[in-house]
């Protein structure tokens, strides 16, 4: 079949706003567009910018979880209940929600994209490793406990849980438990080493990638990694696909399409 599908721009009102962690806000809004775990939407704040955001909640009351890192995310995190934003999508290929024993590894705001996948796993036994720089940046620990039988936390500064990064924690968890699938979302360096770890242990994995993105709809090519569109063939790629990517963990592109080392 073709990839054709119909998406339209829709104005939505913020139903609720919640502070999740330092500089991280979840905005919920009523929007009944069909969406699957790991997909993203383009969010337009008129007069400011339009940016891609992973869906952190699915269903009719959807959500995005935004970390304030720039102009657009500052505008988004300042929105209050009742305010309007304009969305289009959902776009992209999300997680293939697996059966069996699953390890989810989320760094930074990565848990935002992973949790809807974990919440849709009916028969899986889920373990979760959440990485943060410090305790105050830790995201979604309580929410993860609702779907995971084992939630572990790592902090770079040792302020909570395992002292180290999420991949080191994942290595510890993988040495005591044999997983059928690892799901990862977070900074690309983390994903790069997590992918290596999975290859070493022979465990299949899926990782959600990020690239600078303009159109979001598979046309412009600004988000291409090794010729694959993060907005269309991604953002979630399988371990086998990542293995063949020369740019994964090594290179991204700037707004002009120029090459940058990661």
């Amino acid at each position, binding site marked *: 079949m*073709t*990839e*054709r599908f*119909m*998406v*339209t*721009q829709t*104005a939505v009102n913020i139903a609720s706003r919640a502070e999740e962690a330092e500089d991280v806000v979840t905005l919920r809004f009523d929007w009944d567009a069909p969406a699957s775990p790991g997909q993203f939407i*383009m969010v*337009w704040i*008129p*007069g400011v*910018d*339009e*940016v891609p955001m992973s869906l952190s909640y699915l269903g009719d009351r959807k959500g995005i979880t935004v970390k304030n890192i720039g102009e657009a995310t500052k505008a988004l995190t300042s929105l209050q209940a009742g305010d*309007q934003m*304009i969305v*289009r999508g959902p776009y992209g290929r999300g997680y293939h929600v697996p059966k069996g024993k699953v390890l989810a590894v989320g760094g930074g705001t990565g848990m935002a994209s992973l949790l809807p996948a974990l919440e849709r796993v009916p028969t899986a036994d889920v373990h979760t490793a959440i990485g943060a720089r410090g305790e105050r940046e830790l995201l979604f620990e309580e929410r993860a406990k609702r779907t995971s039988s084992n939630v572990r936390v790592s902090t770079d500064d040792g302020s909570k849980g395992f002292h180290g990064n999420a991949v080191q924690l994942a290595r510890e968890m993988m040495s005591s438990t044999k997983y059928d699938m690892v799901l990862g979302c977070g900074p690309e360096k983390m994903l790069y080493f997590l992918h290596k770890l999975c290859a070493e242990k022979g465990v299949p994995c899926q990782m959600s990638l990020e690239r600078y993105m*303009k*159109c*979001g*709809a*598979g*046309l*412009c*090519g*600004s988000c*291409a*990694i*090794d*010729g*694959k*569109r993060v907005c269309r063939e991604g953002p979630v790629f399988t371990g086998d696909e990542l293995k063949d990517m020369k*740019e994964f963990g090594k290179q991204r*592109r*700037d*707004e*002009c*399409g*120029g*090459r940058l080392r990661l």
Partner: protein
Amino acid sequence: MTSLKVVLAGVEMENPTMLASGIMGETGGSLLAMAKGGAGALVTKSIGSAPREGHKNPTLVELEFGYMNAMGLPNPGIDAFGEEMYEAGKAGIPIVGSVFGASAEEFASLSKRMQEFGAEAIELNLSCPHAKGYGMEMGVDPDVVASIISEVKAAVAVPVFAKLTPNTHRLIDVALAAEKAGVDAIVAINTLKAMKIDVDAMRPVLSNRYGGLSGPAVRGVGVRCVYELYEALNIPVIGVGGIEDWRSALEYIMAGAAAVQIGSGVGRVGPRVFGDICSGISSYMEVNRLRNISQLVGVAHD
């Protein structure tokens, strides 16, 4: 056996489908992916002298029958593009280097670099409707177009294509001036200048306010332009605008297009759009007992 082979102003292509400029043409890897989809040739993103970010988002509006975009010619600049051309060259099919400039001299020097990078032809972007000082702003004046083409033709040995805008009542005048100046083929059409207003936001969606309309919505305009160009010109015409299946490709070919380009179709159908169109045309030719695609070019004319 039917043959879809095309020789376009000396450029040999396995089939008449080409990737249109501006779609998936910014990186070597994405060009290779389009070759895998079955394209006969690839046109790069339009490249300028210096790196350029393009317009701020929103740069795209999705519509039921197409897209509206105002990317604003983002590109990494000609110096950085050699690497991408080298990568794209591994596809083993002709790469057409698209360039945009603010003067005839700039077009000529960019074209020369593209030729050095291995481009088998040059496409001049004389038609982008949403970048100030470039594209359409020059491409509606027959004298300006003629002087750019003369300068580029003197600078390169490979064939030169001029991509023209439908946003003028002088399309034929511009095309005739281009032909007289020695251009090897005309590419028509670029997007139609357009606007989308969001009634909830009460403002234009695109950050540039104006953009270019593409996709099936503009096909009827494109087919008409190609039909008129075919009547007026002796050089080949390359048709583009809303092609996304074999029927729409054949419309253009019957109107007089020697080859077709596909842009929006890559987004709406996927990279397989090229291969799908080719197999559809092959079946049509078999049913109608045609051996060569050239037998169909311009058949809609009396």
